């Protein structure tokens, strides 16, 4: 087991495209770190550089205490689970799982024991002689997991391992992978574009945007104190409300007339972005702030009210026991739940 250190790691593809800007991250031993961001932001590129499948343009990558930039993937003591599982179609499940060990000179008895153990953990005992084509998607996913764990790697790498599964299986496997990772205590880097996966599985989240690290933090930190409007909008569903408010003689104002009863941040700009998570806003109040509700979305456990506040889109989430109707409704914006962002840079104030 090992910690992983990225020191200003950068990737420029041969066509000149900079997919990952200099990125410095330290992943402590035994943690599961989730790389999250929209499609095309460079998650896979970063993961593949750690795996050794992609050259590192600049910077240093260490696994444990060694710099591994120039090591072959097979020499990095890692295991990777691919999005489409990448099982060897011509090998049985047992052979798939044992192939890496065999090439490292493990004895047949040792391989058998490890494959049996992995099959037991993953409930694959009955399928060891089958070929991947004779398995369901969920079973293939398990074989891919099995192939990773039999190797006893220092580092697990996952590239969207659940995105080919249906929603139910995805939720189940998410929990299983997390439990397995915690039991084995293997340092892991997990790539996903799904913020729910990121929030539920991670010890620590790295949010990537267009090849740049936007924020690194625990799920709570990321959710409670997003470092930018990008993170605020990406993490959390429904996303955080963001309104442009004018600063008029020390007062925040939206849409010309609605004054927000909030203490503004100390900034030199004459505008500021005001952010509220939908569940942080309460229905009811003194009538100084009114949400013009247009649509009510019934989600079962709660309801979403979508409407306009000072001419800008705004949504709030209320409990299923609260009553709501379309039309103007007074709401309360708690001072301790507000997020302020720079109007141009989008950074947290």
């Amino acid at each position: 087991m090992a910690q992983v250190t990225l020191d200003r790691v950068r990737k420029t593809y041969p066509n000149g495209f900079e997919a990952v800007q200099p990125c410095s991250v330290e992943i402590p031993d035994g943690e599961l770190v989730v790389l999250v961001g929209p499609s095309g932001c460079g998650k896979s590129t970063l993961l593949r550089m750690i795996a050794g499948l992609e050259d590192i343009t600049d910077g240093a990558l260490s696994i444990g205490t060694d710099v591994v930039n120039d090591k072959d993937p097979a020499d990095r003591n890692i295991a990777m689970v691919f999005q489409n599982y990448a099982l060897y179609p011509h090998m049985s499940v047992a052979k798939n799982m044992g192939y890496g060990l065999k090439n490292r000179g493990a004895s047949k008895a040792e391989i058998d024991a490890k494959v049996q153990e992995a099959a037991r953990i993953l409930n694959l005992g009955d399928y060891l002689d089958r070929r991947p084509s004779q398995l369901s998607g969920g079973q293939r996913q398990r074989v891919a997991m099995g192939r990773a764990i039999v190797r006893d790697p220092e580092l697990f790498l996952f590239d969207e391992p659940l995105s080919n599964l249906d929603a139910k299986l995805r939720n189940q496997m998410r929990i299983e992978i997390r439990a397995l990772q915690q039991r084995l205590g293997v340092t892991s880097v997990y790539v996903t574009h799904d913020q729910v996966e990121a929030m539920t599985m991670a010890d620590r989240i790295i949010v990537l945007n267009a090849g740049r690290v936007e924020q690194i933090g625990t799920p709570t930190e990321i959710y409670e104190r997003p470092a930018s409007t990008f993170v605020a909008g990406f993490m959390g569903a429904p996303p955080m409300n963001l309104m442009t408010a004018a600063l008029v003689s020390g007062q925040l104002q939206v849409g010309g007339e609605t004054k927000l009863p909030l203490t503004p941040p100390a900034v030199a700009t004459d505008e500021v972005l005001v952010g509220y998570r939908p569940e942080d806003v309460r229905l009811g109040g003194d009538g100084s702030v009114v949400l013009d509700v247009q649509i009510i979305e019934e989600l079962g456990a709660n309801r979403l009210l979508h409407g306009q506040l000072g001419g800008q889109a705004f949504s709030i989430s209320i409990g299923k026991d609260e009553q709501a109707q379309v039309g103007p409704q007074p709401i309360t914006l708690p001072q301790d739940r507000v997020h302020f962002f720079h109007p141009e840079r989008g950074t947290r104030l």
Partner: protein
Amino acid sequence: MKRAGFTTVWLPVALLLPQLMIIAIFFYWPAAWAVQSSFYLQDPFGFGSTFVGVENYTDLMANSEYGKVARFTVIYTALVTFFSLAIALLLAVKADKVIKGAKSYRTLLMWVYAIAPPVAGFLGLMFFDQRNGPMTEMFQALGWDFRLGADYNSTATAMVIVAVWKQIPVNFIFFLSGLQSIPKSVREAALIDNRSASGRFWEVTFPLLAPTAFFLLIINITYALFDTFGIIDTLVRSEPGNNPVTLVYKVFVDGFRGNDLGGSSAQSVILMVLVLLLTVFQFRLIERRIHYT
């Protein structure tokens, strides 16, 4: 699902008839005729024929010349098949590494495929020309008195080289698309599992290429046995003399030059049986072959 169908039997029959007639006239009728005439001895002047039973066949078996040609055909087929597959595989593996260039490689090598066998033979003639053929000069520089058309081994070598050269593009294209259809992630998984490049090739890449390779093996054997006729005819300048020929070429020489239609027919029948066996073998194996999905 609703099945589309014909309301009368006559329309489908009418539509199939031209194809069936072509098969009957150009394949079954000559084949039947060959079987029949293999049991007769033709008068050299074409005035009549005598039924001789299996004598044409027993004569062939006793004929040392036929044995020699058969032996040469086996060796020739083995060499052409082996080298055209091996070289094409090597080229495809190299081209696959520079995927971007693969398209132009493909087009460039495809050109050779478009050359008709006799033209390939003529190009071969130029390459192996006695006075200024580059290949002849190369062999002579290596100390081999290379004489195309006069020396058995020289002609045999030229026949193999030209036939291989002509067949490589077809094999290359199949191998390359076979290689490119192997998922990238499967190869990357192998990259993590096995540090040896040759190990990865023989244990992961090649098994996934095996269906393509097997298909090509049959195609290449058939090619070397039958389709090289034009190349051989050009290289030996229609003068077999002391030159090596294959079984198919001998059918032509004996039948049309030697006017031994009976013996030539018997040889054709033997070749037909060979093709039949090859086909059965292929279907048997294809049925048993694993389809990876």
